Every structure is written in structure tokens, then in C-alpha cells.
């Protein structure tokens, strides 16, 4: 009761359906090319048009190649899906940031950076990592394609109200411990189903101390604990990040908005269905060894003896083994998890003055053209080039292998993405999830390395 989540959810309830879910009004629907075509088809089949087209923003990200985006997509199936989104957006009068549009990128990077995702909003997208947008203080969650169609048709969704969970992380994280490590630690502690049925509010001094980029990373990974969404109460960090963004309110409207946003916090008397508290000092740079994101450990740790044998067989690891020193074939920096400017700054800071290891293929993929622009503006591209790294063009890339960026079977990839499921980065690919710093350390040494030792 009286939590940040309750305040926003309750303000969006159009009605309680008798004996059923809430009819929830949605302020922002994002559509990407993978989970929307069948929803648009459904709309056509019912003879409907979007009820509030001005609330809907579309952009391709999953299929987009990360090179030569000025040329037609070579894979005809990917091209057909990307083209279908452009066609649907045009037919229904929806805003569309197509490939090569300077506003294009991964939806979960673009939404906040354009000021499309704002505090107090309800936000959905046919994508589980929609939880990302909760970092601005919104109720944001992933939905299925039928639910995308619901929102297209009615700007509403039918949804049972989730329970509430607060996770506080107090204290100051140690060296080389990033938001990604906090999230991997939480997943390891709570497991991949520990927050299922809940909506999470992240709080505590370690969370308050995160930049907006860090909060976006943390909220992005909420779904990997099973949570529908995660959120951080908006504060000065949020307001400073959003001010003057393209779609953020301006002038008097901005002042009014900020005055409202300041009320968006859990009351001192707020009651959560579940609460956890962790000490930031207990958290080390993390890495995963298995085939779900909850199978993580400190990068200098040893694989637990009780680890799933099916997972270890897939990964080619043994229980009780260390990962430090194991050879790495690929390094992937990017995705809606770690494809933001801060992630590139961190990666560049570590590789500066070093060289990419000879045996490593590194894919450095900005989350959006805006991130790409800033990388160049800040001279990060030069640092990366001097260290032997090449910058690619924005998109989801190797996070889920729906484009050309696939990890070959049996190869090891240190990935800053969000999932290490079997085959996630390509059939047979072996993914080790980690932060941009752990990824950078692997990229310059060619083996799993603790960035604190460099």
C-alpha cells in the first residue's frame, strides 16, 4: 500500500473488471518489428485502427544489421519484417524511427534518451526488457503480441495487479562493481523466479548513487528475476537526465511535470508484499557460468558444486572450477542492458593504452545512433580504434542473434547482454554474462580476467 508502484498503477486504472483483472490505461506503447506484425494483422482483421496513434512509437532493432545500414538488409526474411513495421506504421499513422534515422536504436535505449519514457507513465512493449523504462520512475513492463494488439485497439490492457517488492541495496559498491554486477548479484541471490508475480522498486543508497544509465541497466534486468518490472523513484538524477530531451515537457509544462514527479515516491508508511535488503559491500564484479542469468558468481569465484549438470555440460565447465584464465573467443558490448554511453566510457577507460587480444573477436555495438554520436563526440571511438577495436552500428546485435551477429557453436562469448540461455547468441553458443568492465578485461587479455587486477 502507498508504494510508488501503487500510486502510478492506481492512477491508470480505467476500471476493475468484475471477477478479473484491471483495465489499465497505457501512456506509451513501443513497437518493434518482431512482436508487432501479428498484432497489426489482428487489428486489420477486426477492422480497427489504433485508438491513440500519438501515444505509439515504432522502431526496428532486433533484425537490424550492425554494419552497412545504409544498404538494404541482405537477409530477405529480416528485411521483410523490418519493412512490415515501416508499412504498418505508415498505414496506421504511427511515428516510426527507421534504420539510419538519427533517432533509431534499441527501443529500450531510445525511449529514455528521447524523453519518450517519463516518470509516472505506464509503458508497455512486446518485449520483456521493457522493464528498463522503470528507471525513470514509470510502471513499464513487457507484454505479448495479443496485449500489443489490445493497446493498439484500446490504449488499454487487461492485467491483474502484481504484488509489490522492494529491494534495497545499501552502502558503496567496491571497485569495478557496476549496476550490471548489482543486477547479476540480485539474480544469483533471488534466482530467475524469485520475483515472479512482483513489481520491484529498487531503493537504498547504492541505487540512489547510480547514474541514470546505471538505473536503466538495473531495471532492464528485473525480468531476469522473474519480476514483471522494476522501478526507481524519480529524483534530481532523473530530472537532470530528462531535461531538454526531445519529447520531454518544456518551459512551464516542465515545471509542472517536475512538481508532480516529486510526489512519485513510496510513502514512509508504504507496505510492500516483500522486502529484501542487501549490502553493496558484499557485491563483487560478477560473471555467469550457466544457462540462466541466475547462475552467476564473483568473477574470481568457483562454480558451485551443486550447479545444474545439464547447464555445465552445455557450457563445457566442471563444478568447483574457476573461470579466471579460461580462454574467450568473443566479446560483446551492447544491448538494451549495456549499450549506453556510460558503458562505452567504462569499456574505453579500461582498454585505453592496451591492445585487443589477438584471438578475440569483439563486437562493440552502441544502443542507438545517439549513443554512437556521443561516442564520437567524446573521442571514445579514437581510444577504441587505438586499442584495436571497431565500432559497429546500433541494434540488438549479438544479444539474441536475429541478425548477422551470431556466436558460432561451442564458442565462448563474454556478453554484456541479458541472457545466457542455450542458443541465445546462436545455436550452441556459450554465453558468459558480465559487465562492460569484465568484458573489457577479457577483450584485452583473451581470457576471463578480474578487472580489479588490471
Amino acid at each position, binding site marked *: 500500500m502507498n508504494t510508488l508502484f501503487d500510486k502510478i498503477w492506481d*492512477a491508470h486504472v*480505467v476500471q476493475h*473488471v*468484475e*471477477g*478479473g*483483472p484491471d*483495465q489499465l*490505461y497505457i501512456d506509451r506503447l513501443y513497437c518493434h518489428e*518482431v*512482436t508487432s506484425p*501479428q498484432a497489426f*494483422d*489482428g487489428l486489420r482483421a*477486426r477492422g480497427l485502427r489504433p*485508438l491513440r496513434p500519438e501515444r505509439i512509437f515504432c522502431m526496428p532493432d*532486433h*533484425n537490424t544489421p550492425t554494419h552497412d545500414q545504409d544498404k538494404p538488409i541482405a537477409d530477405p526474411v529480416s528485411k*521483410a*519484417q523490418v519493412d*512490415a513495421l515501416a508499412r504498418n506504421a505508415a498505414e496506421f499513422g504511427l511515428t516510426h524511427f527507421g534504420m539510419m534515422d538519427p533517432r533509431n536504436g534499441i527501443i529500450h535505449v531510445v525511449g529514455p534518451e528521447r524523453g519518450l519514457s*517519463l516518470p*509516472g507513465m505506464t509503458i508497455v512493449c*512486446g518485449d*520483456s526488457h521493457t522493464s528498463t523504462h522503470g528507471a525513470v520512475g514509470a510502471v513499464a513492463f*513487457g*507484454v*505479448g*503480441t*495479443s*496485449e500489443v*494488439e*489490445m493497446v493498439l*485497439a*484500446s490504449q*488499454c*490492457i*487487461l*492485467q*491483474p495487479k502484481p504484488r509489490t517488492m522492494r529491494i534495497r541495496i545499501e552502502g558503496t559498491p567496491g571497485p569495478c562493481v557496476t549496476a550490471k554486477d548489482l543486477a547479476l548479484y540480485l539474480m544469483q541471490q533471488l534466482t*530467475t*523466479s524469485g520475483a*515472479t*508475480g512482483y513489481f520491484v522498486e529498487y531503493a537504498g543508497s547504492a541505487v540512489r548513487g547510480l547514474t541514470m544509465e546505471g538505473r536503466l541497466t538495473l531495471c532492464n534486468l528485473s*525480468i531476469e528475476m*522473474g519480476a*514483471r518490472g522494476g522501478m526507481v523513484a524519480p529524483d534530481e538524477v532523473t530530472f537532470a537526465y530528462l531535461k531538454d530531451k526531445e519529447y520531454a515537457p518544456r518551459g512551464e509544462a516542465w515545471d509542472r511535470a517536475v512538481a508532480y514527479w516529486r510526489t512519485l515516491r513510496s510513502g514512509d508508511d508504504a507496505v510492500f508484499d516483500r522486502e529484501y535488503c542487501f549490502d553493496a559491500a558484499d557485491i563483487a564484479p560478477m560473471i555467469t557460468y550457466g544457462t*540462466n542469468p541466475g547462475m552467476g558468481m564473483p568473477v574470481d569465484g568457483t562454480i558451485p558444486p551443486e550447479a545444474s549438470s*545439464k547447464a555445465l555440460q552445455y557450457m563445457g565447465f566442471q563444478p568447483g572450477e574457476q573461470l579466471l584464465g579460461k580462454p574467450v573467443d568473443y566479446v560483446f558490448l551492447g544491448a538494451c542492458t549495456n549499450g549506453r554511453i556510460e558503458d562505452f566510457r567504462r569499456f574505453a577507460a579500461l582498454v585505453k593504452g592496451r591492445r585487443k587480444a589477438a584471438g578475440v573477436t569483439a563486437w562493440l555495438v552502441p544502443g542507438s545512433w545517439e549513443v554512437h554520436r556521443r561516442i564520437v563526440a567524446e573521442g571514445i571511438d579514437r581510444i577504441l580504434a587505438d586499442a584495436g577495436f571497431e565500432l559497429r552500428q546500433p541494434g540488438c546485435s549479438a544479444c*539474441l*542473434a*536475429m541478425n548477422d551477429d551470431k556466436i558460432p*557453436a561451442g564458442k565462448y562469448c563474454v556478453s554484456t547482454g541479458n*541472457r545466457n*540461455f*542455450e*542458443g*541465445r547468441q546462436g*545455436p*550452441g553458443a556459450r554465453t558468459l554474462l558480465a559487465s562492460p568492465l569484465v568484458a573489457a578485461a577479457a577483450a584485452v587479455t583473451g581470457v576471463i580476467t578480474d578487472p580489479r587486477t588490471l
Partner: protein
Amino acid sequence: MKRKLDLIESTCVPLPLENVDTDQIIPARFLKATTRDEAFFGENLFRDWRYRADGTPNPSFVLNDPRYGGEILLAGRNFGSGSSREHAAWALAGYGFKAVISSFFADIHKNNELNSFVLPVVVSEDFLAELFATVQANPSARVRIDVEAQTVTSLATGRSESFELNAYKKYCLLNALDDIDYLVLQQDKINAYEKTRQHEL
């Protein structure tokens, strides 16, 4: 696709693995289809477990085990975690499943099953273990799911449990109606909400 789900009585396919994620149910490379061709998704259900890299069926995977078949999938806890892809539910429907019985479902996937007219049935860990044992010992053992009564019964042992299903969704399943049918009738309420909301976002 919309269909009436009232009574399901069938043999079961046992998949006693926990944390089966939707990337396994339908790998991402099959999500490039732009139409809702459930037969196509069904053909690729559990693709990388069901087939070896050379495309031949993997005989050790349960869908290739001739002893098992039916309209009910028995699955370990935390079924459908990970990606929100509804294609996973379409693949289950396209393969011929009408219900999935597990002790715990991931949220988004559970909604996707309901919206795709595949019934997620949550039973106790204990009952799930019994169902696995019964079906593995006797693949012709049948299970009956009564949507109206909200009960699931192992016909071999007679054990029965009730399962949760809200009254609204039950009405939808029994009458082959979906949420969009409902929402488009709520236009007046949506207009009223938009007019009276306190903070324009």
C-alpha cells in the same frame, strides 16, 4: 487462435525440466515470421532440443518419444521464463497442446498462454511430481481438466486438485472470447478516464 476450452481429457507429454525459458520453446530465429502461422511455430516447438544440429530428430527428447503424446504438456517449475515472445504460446498451440500443467509459470508467458487459448494449470509441487511419476510409468494414463469446475484430475489415481482462474478469463475461455473483444466495448469508459485523469502524460 480463439477457441473454446471447456474440458480437456488427454494423455500427457512429460518434460520434467525446471526453468524452461521461451528461447527453448521457440528459438529467436523462428520469430522472423510476420504472420501468425501456428502450424509453423508448432513445427519448431523446442526446435533445438527436438532436432540435432544436422536436422535429424533427437531420439532422447520427449516429443520424439513414440510412447508419449496428447494435448497436455507436463512441465517443471518456472515454465516459460525469459523473453515475452507470444510465439512460444502459439508454438504450443500449433503443436496441439491445449494445456500446460506445472507448479509455477513465468508471468508474461502465463498471460500469453491464456491469450492464445492454451490453459496454464498451476498444481502443487507434490501433485506435479505424482503426475510425472504416473505418466512416466504409464504413458497412456489420462488427465482431465475441467475449466468450468476449475479442477485437474489424474484419472489413473483419482487424485484431483482445483486450480486458479479468474471469473473473467474463465468466461472468455468457455466462450472463445478474447480481451480485445472486451476492450473495444469499453470506449465510453476509456473516454471518461482520459477526460478526468489528473496528470496528463
